[in-house]
């Protein structure tokens, strides 16, 4: 019995062997030029050995994520939104530290070319910012609109990328800001660093903004509205509050803050090659703003400000000399005063970089900035820079004994923007370092 089974097994094994050999022979017969001992056979053996360990390609974790974005299976992290609400992490103002919030953005609603925008932000230092705009906002494609966060410093039309400029803008805007650690060292050029105080700067703006792009290089903007202000004690416990250290005479508007009517006009001429990453060209802006005191009539004033910037390639597109001069003059009405909280300031990441934010403030401000920028690569730019500026109560006192600083900067850039920068500068009061997600000028 066992012998019979063994015989059956042997027969079966033999049959399998014959079948295998036959299959092999058939395979070989298809390729007679691959007989053993040939180069073709040798190469074929290399391949046949690979049959035993076939492994499909498996992308790594990072590659999978990148691929997902590239295939548009998922939006860019910057495009993540829920019904037009975009989560964001950013700063609100100088000294606010990191803020978290949400922006709402609905461009071209129902193909009407009307847009809606709003934002809500709260920082770890208790800064708050809320705003809402509706109308025809300055924007390029689906990108967020360029809107003023401080009322007067943005020339919306000029900051849009060339070729995408909106011929006409018209929108209503409401904005509320709550800045509880705003610095105040006293007014005038002789304020002392050790006199630092902080105050709560609370303001609300209700504005109507209109603008027209008269040519590819020239635009006009006008804005009118109502401004409410409130000054309270600062919340930075390291420093005294402004109310404790200064009087209303030293800081006009410290005790009472009227409401204002605001009327402003801006003219903007721009011949820069790329507004947010210029290599050549120039721009000039002139702004006239009048704030009408709606209470005591003691604080109304008119501000005239001019900003001129030039960009000169130094024999190569990788070397640029960037120059800026800024002049602002506030003239109070009827012998009154300009509220200290509304005065222009110097110091911080955009002006005198060797000094802290809002280090100097007064009714007249002049600022000169020069940067020698050189590209180590299209995405990496370095800069040696110098700033000089001064605040004063009178224009005649503005151009002597300027505060100065110098430093070096590293910028990471896209083609159109500065994505990130670190500037380190030294002024007479020591070193300052700034990390920002925008350009200096």
């Amino acid at each position, binding site marked *: 019995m066992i012998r019979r089974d063994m015989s059956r097994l042997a027969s079966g094994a033999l049959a399998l062997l014959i079948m295998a050999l036959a299959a092999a022979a058939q395979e070989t017969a298809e390729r007679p030029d691959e007989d053993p*001992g040939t180069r073709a056979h040798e190469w074929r053996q290399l391949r046949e050995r*690979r049959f035993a*360990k076939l492994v499909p390609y498996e992308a790594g974790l990072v590659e999978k994520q*990148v691929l997902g974005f590239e295939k*548009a299976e998922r939006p860019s992290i910057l495009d993540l939104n829920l019904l037009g609400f975009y989560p964001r992490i950013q700063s609100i103002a100088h000294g606010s530290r990191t803020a978290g919030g949400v922006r709402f953005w609905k461009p071209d609603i129902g193909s009407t070319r009307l847009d809606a925008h709003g934002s809500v932000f709260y920082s770890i230092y208790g800064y708050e910012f809320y705003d809402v705009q509706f109308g025809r906002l300055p924007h390029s494609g689906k990108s967020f609109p360029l809107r003023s966060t401080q009322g007067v410093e943005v020339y919306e039309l000029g900051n849009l990328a060339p070729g995408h400029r909106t011929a006409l803008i018209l929108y209503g805007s409401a904005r509320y800001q709550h800045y509880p650690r705003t610095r105040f060292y006293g007014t005038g050029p002789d304020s002392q660093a050790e006199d630092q105080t902080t105050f709560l700067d609370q303001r609300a703006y209700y504005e109507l903004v209109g603008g027209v792009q008269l040519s590819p290089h020239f635009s006009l903007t006008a804005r009118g509205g109502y401004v409410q202000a409130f000054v309270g004690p600062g919340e930075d416990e390291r420093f005294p509050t402004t109310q404790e250290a200064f009087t209303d005479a030293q800081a006009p508007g410290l005790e009472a803050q009227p409401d204002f009517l605001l009327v402003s006009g801006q003219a903007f001429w721009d011949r820069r090659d790329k507004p947010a990453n210029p290599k050549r060209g120039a721009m000039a802006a002139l702004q006239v703003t009048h704030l009408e005191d709606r209470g005591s009539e003691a604080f109304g004033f008119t501000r005239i400000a001019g900003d001129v910037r030039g960009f000169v390639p130094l024999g190569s597109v*990788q070397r640029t000399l960037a120059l800026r001069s800024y002049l602002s003059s506030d003239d109070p009405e009827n012998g009154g005063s300009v509220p200290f909280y509304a005065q222009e300031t110097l110091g911080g990441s955009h002006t005198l970089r060797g000094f802290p934010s809002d280090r100097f403030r007064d009714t007249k401000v002049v600022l000169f900035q020069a940067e020698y920028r050189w590209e180590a*690569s299209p995405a990496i730019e370095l800069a040696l820079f110098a700033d000089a500026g001064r605040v004063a109560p009178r224009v005649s006192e503005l151009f002597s004994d300027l505060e100065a600083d110098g430093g070096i900067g590293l910028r990471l850039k896209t083609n159109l923007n500065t994505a990130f920068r670190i500037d380190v500068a030294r002024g007479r009061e020591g070193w300052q370092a700034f990390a920002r997600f925008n350009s200096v000028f």
Partner: protein
Amino acid sequence: MRLFSIPALVLASAPATHAQRFLPDDPLRVDRDDLPIEKPGVVELATAWDVVEHSFWHRPSGSAPPAVNVNTLGEVPDSSWFENRIGAREMSIEELVRGPNQVAGPAPGPWTITAGKSQGITPGFTIRDDRGDVYFLKFDPIPYPNLSTAADVIGTKFFHAIGYFVPENYIAYFRREQLVIAPDAKVPVRGAKKRKMMPADLDSILARVPHLPDGRVRCIASRLLPGEPLGPHKYWGTRRDDPNDAFPHEHRRDLRGYRVFSAWLNHDDSRSVNSQDLFVRDADGKGHVKHYLIDFSSALGSGSDAARQIAPQNPRAGNEYILELKPIVKTAFSFGLWERPWRKVKYETYTEVGRIEAEFFEPQVWRPEYPNPAFERMRLADAFWAARIVSRFSDEAVRALVGAGEFSDAEAERHLADTLIRRRDKIVAYYFRQLNPLAELRIEGDALAFANLGERAGLARVEAYEYEWHVLENRTGRLDPLPAAKGESVEPRLALPPGGHSYLMARIRTRGGETAWRKAVDVYIRKEGGVLNVVGIEREE
């Protein structure tokens, strides 16, 4: 340094069944890498990750080993990657210009749009013509009519003639009325599911492309490749689920030499994403993988600008990687006073041709967009193989292939052809000076005849060829000098030594001309059935 034409990796990995130098079927003319296999998986590569990965990984350390997919003559056998064409035979101008094309382009009549385009920097969509053939359509940007479409077609034809597998790319013209959107056509939407394609989508695409005065639109129509797409191939490693893909890509001569061809044609976009593997099924359902190069729209003078729009080539293209540390450091620490030499190049630019030149061009330092593992491992023997193929393109052939771009500006066409001819000459001049450029080795009567490609190209005059004859014992690889069988020959022709040896080896050095021409070329001759043939060539690198 010695190069052994017999693939080193093959010998290393093969069982030690023999030590003999040459096998009966050497030199192998066809690499049968088409064993029937199951369909491999589809590979998807992230382009951004590809840049990072290749910039920081897969860089060579030390000198690269010799290429592995070469026969004993140092040639690349025909395979699923490469087919010897102009390098191995004469090609007529008509054949060169026809390239891979099998038809005359999309059939006249309505074209049905079946899908919008989701990848790449040029706008486009997919159509099905009246014959049922499927084509991908891509367009030029309004400021640069003909720029990318001409580059794509010209590049296709050049790379086909060289020997690569490429799509059938046609320049085609159509009118808006010809287009019909299929009911199930979809367009991709970033961050959302694809949605039904609407006439507005088509109008949006066509609004961004140039129209001829008569209202027609010019496009590149790329015919659907025959097979099932498997995604791109990488330039390192192997496709691990394809048994036929036995040779690491970075050690394939056809991929290493691709660097020389890309340098010639300024194809800086010669990266993985511009390749396509296809599964070609046999009757029994199994099949094999065939490897294609696709998309030459960023070759020659065509490229893209910083906003990723089709535009004349960035001056950096071909001169510096996207991420290259050395120039960054040099510029940074010199306060920008050190300037990249390529920034000073003056280009003769034409709207249709873009930015390409031959004066500053140096083939040995030319670079693609980012490091390519195969390119970085290219050895002189690989480059010589490629340069010899480049040298086979006559002026007439270059002009005919450039003419396939259907430029409207004759001056632009002439400029491009002249530039390519000068770049070809630079490639020949450089690589034929790096080693002893003997080729066309053959037995003529009772002599070993050959040609010095360097002298033929006018690089220098040869005084004589020094030679030594050896007897090869093929079984062991042992070489014994033949007594009194050395000397010089003024002619590129060496009389065969007497005797009935089965294997002979002639070591030849060129005297006169370039220094590198002193390097040895070892030529192996086999006697088989009374007939002598050249069976092996080894070049000293």
